[in-house]
């Protein structure tokens, strides 16, 4: 595709609900990253995929957070039993190769947990 696509754009969840956030990276991009951005803050690293392999998940805040990229393209970030502190914008980014490359960000999913 022309850019990184994320859906939904906005998600409102009741506390305790499970949510799934989708990221469709630029076609052919090897690397995929998930970041969490709180209001007025910089993006915080969550997890990194190289193709279908999740090489780093050290940034996931708890075991309620789970990410997958089963075919090395589309990725899903799942948050179980959402809590109010999970409210943030979740950004997906992709890059064409492994290693340090410029990141192309999607527009993000703004999650609000009530």
């Amino acid at each position: 595709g022309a850019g990184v696509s994320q859906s939904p754009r906005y998600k409102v969840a009741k506390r305790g609900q499970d949510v799934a956030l989708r990221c469709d990276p630029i076609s052919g991009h090897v690397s995929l990253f998930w970041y969490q951005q709180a209001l007025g803050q910089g993006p915080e690293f969550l997890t990194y995929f190289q193709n279908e392999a999740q090489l780093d998940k050290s940034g996931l805040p708890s075991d309620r957070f789970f990410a997958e990229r089963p075919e090395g393209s589309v990725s899903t970030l799942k948050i179980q039993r959402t809590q109010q502190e999970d409210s943030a914008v979740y950004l997906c980014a992709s890059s064409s190769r492994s290693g340090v490359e410029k990141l192309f960000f999607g527009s993000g999913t703004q999650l609000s947990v009530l």
Partner: protein
Amino acid sequence: GQQVMQIPQYQHVQEGEDFTTYCNSSTTLSNIQWYKQRPGGHPVFLIQLVKSGEVKKQKRLTFQFGEAKKNSSLHITATQTTDVGTYFCAGTMYSGGGADGLTFGKGTHLIIQP
């Protein structure tokens, strides 16, 4: 832990004035990237610096990477209203930083008064 600090957090300038944001890391960086995020938007890549003491220019923007590869700066000459947004530095640490993931600073919010 590994941190990238940015100052100032907010900067108000009159249109036409210059603007500088500074980025400092607690550890040596293998490289540093700069991103711009417009209000309501997503981060957009501006540039990457790799070499010690490197200086790069993009029109009115000048980027520097310190000799020790622990600090960087972005300077905008004669700001315009289109420069409004948040400028983030993001570094990759030699010791990690999330398996090729970038560690972002909290950003400098540039506000321009016409």
